[in-house]
């Protein structure tokens, strides 16, 4: 299935959860926050949140800012 991850379309295995996606992306889950289709996914829901074809996923972290 296809996901739009941080604005870029990517193909991943069907029916993965957020935890598995972050693992595939080599992202440390403690260093990011995640939205799916503009809704916040809390850290404790990463395992239970299944992704579906066409979902828009935002994976954010902190950068320098004022």
């Amino acid at each position, binding site marked *: 299935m296809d996901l739009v991850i941080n604005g870029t379309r990517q193909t991943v295995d069907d029916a993965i959860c957020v935890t598995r996606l972050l693992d595939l*992306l080599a992202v440390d889950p403690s*260093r*990011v926050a995640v*939205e799916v289709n503009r809704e916040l996914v809390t850290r404790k829901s990463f395992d239970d949140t299944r992704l579906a074809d066409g979902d828009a996923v935002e*994976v*954010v972290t*902190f950068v320098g*800012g*004022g």
Partner: protein
Amino acid sequence: MAPDTYAVGPFRFESRLFLGTGKYATHSLMTDALDASGCQVVTVAVRRDVLSADGDRKKDNILDHLDFDRYTVLPNTAGCFNAADAIRSARLARELLDGLGNAGARWVKLEVLADKKTLLPDPVQTLEATRALTDLGFCVLAYSNDDPILAARLKSAGAASVMPAGSPIGSGQGILNPHNIRLCLEYLKTDDPDYPVIVDAGVGTASDVTIAMELGADGVLLNTGVACADDPVRMARAMNHAIQAGRLAWLSGRIPRKPYASASSPTDGTIASGAAGAAGQAPAHVS
């Protein structure tokens, strides 16, 4: 003497300088500047993580360079141009900081901008987001125009602090309208003198910080003035002195401005001038 501290929402600080972490050439330059500034609060922004399919991603995260025991992280909603995006950004930041066990999860610097050219805040969207985020349990520090009426509205909407702009973000123009900042302070602090007002944005050099503090602000937030100085660490030290100078001057009560001179030295006892013996005094007989 008891330390001169102040509170913003659930936090209490001694340093009155909030320093941004953007635009530094390197992380080590940033940490040196933070250290030299004496700040206790640092701002950060929420952005998409740099990802790539092959797992080869940028690993150097700002979180690895901030001493959480020393600095309270204040996430901002910079780059948001409507209330909805600012609320999303604030919630993402809170989730991130919560996961890290960081106290900064409790507050947010709300920035809802109106226009890319001036980066001036959108007053209507800022007010709306202040209400919504306060309802969601955030301690909201609202970046605002230097408009006393809007400042009072933001406070009524629940803002824990109002942050009037000195001048546009990154412009280095300093405090363009000290009269309006003074009115903001009056409108926010009358009958509530401890309500924290942090002047945010536009600082170009140390004297700008001092001027803000001399007007009676509780603190100043700046980023570009330090990060983009030729010598950021030395400028951070200057800002550290400037904020303390301004605070002490405010507490000391400045003299009123007067139209004419008032001599500092006694006017009595000056030596004679003009022709010798013409001072009208009988010569003293010394023997």
